[in-house]
């Protein structure tokens, strides 16, 4: 399996040489996925918490829909954003298609349901425990949201990481709305697809290893933060 050996060698060489093209791809990948996760979390955390606290007609449907959207195929999300942002689309004026901005939008669409659905679950459980005490303190449901989100923070970190995993792993959405343009919208996953189809397997595998390493690094950092907090809070 000389090809696999050379894949590791290629990966190592890519990293050690600090290949500028690779560096550009890595930076763009992280920029896109981290922005998407950040935006999605800012929207989805309060949304999930609100869904946990309020009872209203149609809530069940919304919860099921959100759960189902966790499995939204990236290509479908990509297609939807593509139609939205294409010249003839309702948001065509923005000229976002085939820019990193469009990729962020598509990934937000993928990550938001995951964070919202899992947040709802976690906050609902915590709320069951805290409800009487918080009401006794005179808190309205709106004011309970930050309290519950903060006290669920350890679990929610894992939730946000799951969102980041989804964003950094998907290829369908960024391929469609980004277009895999060299130096503009090429990210790790689309680069791997391209190199594979070109038959440049060592480079594709090398990129794959770098991607895995990056995801591992982000998760390790989060784990470290979580464990420290857990030990401090008991």
């Amino acid at each position, binding site marked *: 399996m000389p090809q696999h050996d050379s894949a590791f060698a290629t990966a190592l060489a890519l990293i050690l040489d600090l290949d500028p093209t690779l560096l550009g791809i890595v930076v763009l990948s992280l920029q896109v996925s981290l922005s998407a996760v950040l935006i999605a979390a800012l929207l989805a955390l309060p949304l999930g918490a609100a869904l946990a606290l309020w009872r209203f007609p149609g809530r069940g449907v919304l919860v099921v829909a959100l759960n189902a959207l966790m499995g939204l195929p990236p290509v479908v999300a990509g297609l939807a954003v593509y139609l939205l942002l294409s010249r003839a689309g309702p948001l065509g004026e923005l000229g976002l298609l085939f820019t990193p901005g469009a990729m962020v939008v598509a990934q937000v669409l993928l990550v938001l349901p995951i964070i919202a659905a899992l947040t709802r679950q976690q906050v609902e459980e915590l709320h069951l425990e805290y409800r009487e005490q918080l009401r006794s303190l005179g808190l309205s449901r709106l*004011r309970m949201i930050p309290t519950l989100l903060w006290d669920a923070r350890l679990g929610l970190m894992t939730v946000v990481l799951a969102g980041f995993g989804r964003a950094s792993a998907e290829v369908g959405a960024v391929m469609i709305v980004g277009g895999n343009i060299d130096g503009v919208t090429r990210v790790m996953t689309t680069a791997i697809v391209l190199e594979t189809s070109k038959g440049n397997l060592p480079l594709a595998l090398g990129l794959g290893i770098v991607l895995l390493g990056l995801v591992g690094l982000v998760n390790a950092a989060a784990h470290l933060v979580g464990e420290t907090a857990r030990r401090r809070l008991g």
Partner: protein
Amino acid sequence: MNDMLQVHTPASIAPLELDGLGFTHRGQPLLSDLSLRLDGCRRTLVLGPNGAGKSLLMRLAHGLLPPTHGRVRWQGEVPRQAMVFQRPVLLKRSALANLTYALAVHGTPRLRRRTLARQALERFGLGALAHRPARVLSGGEQQRLALARAWLLEPRMLFLDEPTSALDPAAIKAVEDAVTDFHWRGTRILMSTHDLHQARRLADEVIFLCGGRLLEHSPAERFFTAPATPQAAAFLRGELVW
């Protein structure tokens, strides 16, 4: 602590009237047709066998649950209230942060919160545990922290739902002392317990519930020496009543 004692002591607390109060859950009446009036700043102990509706009465009176029948009515301005639960619910933060949180909710200016919280911790013998996570404290310490939190809210009416049922004697003593302190500060107290000795130690008056009904509401001395109902008499003799 004395400065805190003086802050909020208007002459009287609005009387609390429960008017035909009832609570039905899935067709099952858990509390029915309960009417009584609490005034002054007495210590009222709620007694009764398990399932008599003691906790439910507390929750309805405190406003945590809406009654299915009847009304909870304050004759005048609704006073500041607090409740201490059987199992203290503490936030996943340090002991100190649990108190500053309550003060923040209460609207205390940021700069004063730490000082007040510190004082309350000292008062309840938790000074050394300020930075410990509240959730890893012992049961007795957690309940003392819950009492300290209630103390900071300066309630005029305090509800305690079997606050000592899971505690050892030393911790029970601490809770009872705290109840007495609240009483001296001019707080009306409604506390449920299944410990008759505790009721004898603390009660100014007694509410006796059985099977979701109010059977007696009388001064403690009369209740303990001459209960008016056979159920209460049996309960006082230590017989099983339901």
